[in-house]
């Protein structure tokens, strides 16, 4: 438990660090806002168009795959702590083999359907 108190203290130290840095910056840095300075940077020309535009988010399939595998990974960690148990060891090895096998099959299917290509 005391370990997590230390983690919280470190988090607090981080917040203090950035707050202190921002106070120092406020004291030292100049402030001279100017319309041209505040425009969006677009390689020297005035920004083109509005904030909204249509685009194709190409990696949504990767996000689906990621969610599936991330759930898989969550099950792997508790498995790591029980696999040495003599009663569970071999049986859990087979079970995990089946579990991972199903997911690999899914990945292979996605690959075969051409979903693992960015373009």
């Amino acid at each position, binding site marked *: 438990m005391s370990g997590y108190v230390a983690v919280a*203290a470190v988090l607090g130290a981080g917040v203090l660090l950035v707050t202190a840095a921002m106070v120092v910056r406020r004291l030292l840095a100049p402030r001279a806002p100017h319309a041209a300075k505040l425009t969006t940077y677009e390689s020297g020309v005035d920004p083109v168009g509005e904030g909204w535009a249509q685009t194709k988010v190409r*990696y949504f399939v990767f996000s689906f795959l*990621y969610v599936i*595998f991330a759930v898989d*990974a969550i099950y792997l960690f508790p498995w790591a702590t029980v696999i040495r148990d003599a009663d569970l060891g071999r049986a859990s090895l087979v079970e995990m083999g089946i579990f991972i096998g199903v997911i690999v099959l899914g990945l292979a299917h996605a690959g075969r359907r051409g979903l693992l*290509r960015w373009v």
Partner: protein
Amino acid sequence: MSDLAPWVEVVLRAVAVLAAFLVLPLIVGQTEHKVMAHMQGRLGPMYAGGFHGWAQLVADGVKFVQKEDITPARADRWVFRLAPFVALIPYLVALAVIPLSPTVVGADVDASAVLVLAVIGVGIIGTLMAGWASANKYSLLGAMRAGAQLVSYELPMVLAVASVALAAGSLSLVSIAEAWKPWWLLWQLPGAVVFLVAALAELQRPPFDMPLADSEIVFGAFTEYTGLRFAFFLLAEYAGIVVMSLLFAVLYLGGWSGPFEQWLGWLWTVLKGFLVAVVVIWLRVSWPRMREDQLQRLAWVWLVPMALLQLALTAVGVVVFP
């Protein structure tokens, strides 16, 4: 430290972690300046501080504090201003739970391997916030690339760490490093390679720096940043190198085990981590940037199957040859 009051100990730990967090990234950064320069037949910084430009990054920091901090008029102000902190602080927390030796550790928690992975994943939210809140086309493209990259490379990394946890039968970094034996260098080699590549990609270091690609999208999600906030993003990158290198040393190189470990102890971990950091720098100098689709393909077609294979190899090794 057991004779101190509990709150004093907690404060001391936080201060020590903060000090390490402010010093180690600068050492890695200076090493990068010098190693990269010499690999390219240059000298690198030579003037700041006198001896071989040792104070170059301190001078850079002083310079950044004195620069004007600009928030673009179209930006989402609060999100834009908070983004650098969200990118930086997770690495501080990650550094706190990585043990340098069984006794030299900022915060000793049970499932430190899982905690480190969870915390490192938060950093990307800072990049996404920066990219979205900037209201800049380059920034948005950079943030999207960064998000896609993290989604693809988080997975092989988690699987590689799961394999080591499996081999050691523990989720604690201290127990993992204590269970380590030299022949794991061979047994866990595929996992180590996967981890190193995935770590480079998560840090968005060359050859995986499409999210920043200066020749395509200026500086990606950080295009609109100036002054100290920009410096914080850079500090986050180098703190990330420190965290990943130490993590690699603890997981795959046995951390503090080595000759005279009862006297040297944490020095071994730091030394091994430093060598890994030099390799990270070396890879930056020697590889060209990959294309976005090549990067995704590498993750899903090569790294994920390789990590799963390593997992099977580890599981069979643990059960069949206990």
